[in-house]
C-alpha cells in the first residue's frame, strides 16, 4: 500500500469513528425517547427512574386521535362490550371515547398548507430562477439580494402588518392566506437554490434547441426542466420542510380552521394534566416524514441549508 500524507492512519480513523459515533448516539437519545414515549402508557411515561424497557402500548396513539370522557364504574358496567381495541384501552382507564380529536384535522392542514405553498414556491421560483440564470435582468444582483434579505426579518416583525392586512382581506385563519404567506417566505430559498441548479445546466443544450426552432418556452420546459428535475425535487423538499416546521406565523395567524400541527401538538392535553404519550405519538407522526426526507436529501443537504452558498 502506498503511503499518503493526507490519509489518516487506521488508529486515527478508529478513534475519530468512535468519537463521532458516540456523539451521534447521544444526539439521537432525545429523538428515540420521543418515539419510545409514544408507545408507553401514561403511568410508564412519568415513572421514576425513567423506563427504558417497558411493555409497548398504543394508548398514546389512541389518546392522540380521540377525545375521552370519564364515566362512573356503574355506567361502565352498563355499557355493551367494547367494539374495538381502542375502546378497550380507553375503558381500562374508566373512560369512554367521546369522539375524534382535532389532531387529524391539524395534520391535514399541515399537509394542505405545506404542499400548497411548496407547489406555488416551486412554480414561481423555477420561472424566476430560470430568468435570473439565463437573461440579462437590470439590477439582477440587487433583486437577488433583495429576495434574500427578506429572510432577515424576525417573523414576529413581519407578522404585525400581515395580521392587519389579512384581517382586512379576510385571509386570517384561512388555508389560502397561509399558503401565500409561506410561499412568500419560501420563494427566496427556492429562487436561490434553483438558480444554482439551473446555472449548472450547460446552456449549449437549449441554445441548440433554440437554433432548431424551439421557442423560449419550449426550450424551457422541454430541455431545461427535465435537466433540472433533481434540483427541483430537492428544492421542493426543502420548501416543504420549512412550511411543515413553521411555528411563529402559524401560532399568530391561525386559530382553528387553518391551524397546522406545530402549534397544536404542544397543547394536546389528556383528562387532567399533560398526556405525554399522546404528545409523543403526535410528535413522532409529525417528525417521521421529515426524517425520511432528510435521508433522501443528504446529498443536497448542505446546499439547501445555506441557500446555495455552499455547493458541495
Amino acid at each position, binding site marked *: 500500500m502506498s503511503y*499518503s*500524507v*493526507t490519509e489518516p492512519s487506521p488508529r486515527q*480513523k478508529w478513534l*475519530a*469513528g468512535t*468519537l*463521532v*459515533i458516540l456523539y*451521534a448516539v447521544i*444526539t*439521537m437519545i*432525545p429523538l428515540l*425517547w*420521543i418515539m419510545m*414515549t409514544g408507545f408507553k402508557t401514561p403511568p410508564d411515561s412519568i415513572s*421514576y427512574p*425513567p423506563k427504558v424497557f417497558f411493555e409497548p402500548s398504543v394508548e398514546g396513539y389512541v389518546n392522540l386521535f380521540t377525545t375521552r370522557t370519564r364515566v362512573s364504574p356503574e355506567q361502565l358496567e352498563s355499557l355493551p362490550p367494547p367494539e374495538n381495541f381502542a375502546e378497550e384501552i380507553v375503558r381500562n382507564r374508566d373512560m369512554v371515547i367521546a369522539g375524534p380529536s382535532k389532531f387529524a384535522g391539524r395534520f391535514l392542514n399541515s399537509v394542505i398548507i405545506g404542499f400548497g405553498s411548496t407547489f406555488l414556491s416551486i412554480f414561481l421560483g423555477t*420561472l*424566476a430562477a430560470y*430568468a*435570473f440564470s439565463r*437573461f*440579462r*435582468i437590470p439590477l439582477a444582483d440587487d433583486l437577488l439580494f433583495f429576495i434574500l*434579505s427578506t*429572510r432577515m*426579518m*424576525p417573523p414576529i*416583525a*413581519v407578522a*404585525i*402588518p400581515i*395580521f*392587519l*392586512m389579512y384581517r382586512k382581506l379576510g385571509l386570517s385563519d384561512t388555508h389560502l392566506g397561509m399558503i401565500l404567506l409561506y410561499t*412568500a417566505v419560501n*420563494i*427566496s430559498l427556492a429562487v436561490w437554490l434553483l*438558480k*444554482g441548479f439551473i446555472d449548472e445546466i450547460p446552456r449549449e443544450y437549449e441554445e441548440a434547441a433554440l*437554433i432548431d426552432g*424551439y*421557442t*423560449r*418556452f419550449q426550450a424551457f420546459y422541454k430541455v431545461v426542466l427535465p435537466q433540472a428535475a433533481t434540483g427541483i425535487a430537492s428544492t421542493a423538499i426543502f420548501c416543504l420542510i420549512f412550511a*411543515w*416546521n413553521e411555528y*411563529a406565523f402559524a*401560532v399568530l395567524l391561525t386559530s382553528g380552521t387553518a391551524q397546522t400541527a406545530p402549534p397544536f401538538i*404542544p397543547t394536546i392535553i389528556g383528562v387532567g394534566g399533560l398526556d405525554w404519550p399522546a*404528545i409523543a405519538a403526535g*410528535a413522532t407522526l*409529525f417528525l417521521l416524514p421529515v426524517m425520511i426526507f432528510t435521508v433522501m436529501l*443528504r446529498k443536497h443537504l448542505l446546499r439547501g*441549508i*445555506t441557500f*446555495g452558498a*455552499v455547493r*458541495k
Partner: protein
Amino acid sequence: MSEKTIDRLASATPVRVARKVKGLSDRAIAWIFVGPTIFLLLAINIFPLLWTINLSFTNFKANRLNREVKYIGLRNYERILGDADVWLSMQATAHFLFWTLFFQVLIGFTLAWLINKKFRGNDLWTTIIVLPMMLSPAVVGNFWTFLYQPQIGLFNYIMTFFTGADPSSFDMLGSVDLAPWAIVIVDTWMWTPFVMLICLAGLRSIPDYIYEAAEIDRASKLRQFFTITVPMVLPFLMLAILFRGIENFKMFDLVVQLTGGGPGSITEMASINLKREAFEKWRTGYSSAFAIILFVTVFGLASVYVKALNKVKER
C-alpha cells in the same frame, strides 16, 4: 461559493442565439417569469415592511379599532431605547447568541474534523447527526420540557447518574441560574450539525497537495493545522456563524416552548418580548418600532460582518 453564481450571471444568452429565438422576446419572457415572484414579495414582504415603518410613528393598537390613531413622532423609539426591560431582553438575546455560537462552532468544527478522517461508515453517521436540525423546533422544544422535568425527566436522570445529585434538586427550566443554559443546550443539540456540515465542506475543499507540500517542508502536524486547515476553513466557518447568528437573533419557537421567557424574565429574549408587546399587549405602534429596531440591528450587524467575511475570503 457565491462568486461563481455571479460569474455565471454575467454571461447571459449570447446575442447571436438570442436573435434567432422565436416567440416572445427574451425581455418579455424575463419579466413574465420574474414578475409574479417580485409581486408576491412586494405584497407580502415589502409592503408590510413599509407599513410597519409607518405604524412605528403612531400610537395605534390593533385591538382598539375605535380609538383615534395619532402620529406621535419618535416617541415609541424613545420609549423602547429608554426601557430597562428592553435592554434586559437584548442581554438575554446576546447571552444566547454568544454561547450557542461558541459551542456550535467548537463542537461542529471538531466533529467535521473527525468525520474528515474518512473512517468507514462516516456518511451514515453524518446523516444521523444531521437529523435534529431538520425537525420542527416547536415540537421538539416542547418535548424537551419533558426531558427537563425535575423528578421524572430523562435529562435530570442522566445528570443524576453522572453527578450523584438528587434528580429533583435541580430544575433546568425553572431555575434562574440554569434556564439560560437549558435553552443553549437544546439549541446546540439542534444546530451543531449545521456548523458541522459547512465546516466539512470547507475541509473537503482543501486540496491534498497543500498538505503534501507542507509535509515536504517538514511542517509539524500542529503547524499544518494552524497554517493550512484553520485559515482554509475560516471563510466557511464565518458563513456558518452568519447564518446561525441571524437565525438565533430571531429565535422564537424553541425558546417559547421551552421556557416561555421565564422564570421571571430571565430568558425573555428580544423576539419573545416583541411577541408579548405585539400580540398580547397589542401595542401595535410601539411594537412596530421595536420590530424596526431589531431589523436594523440584524441588518447592520450582518452587513458589517459580510464585509469582514469578504476580506477573509480575499486573503
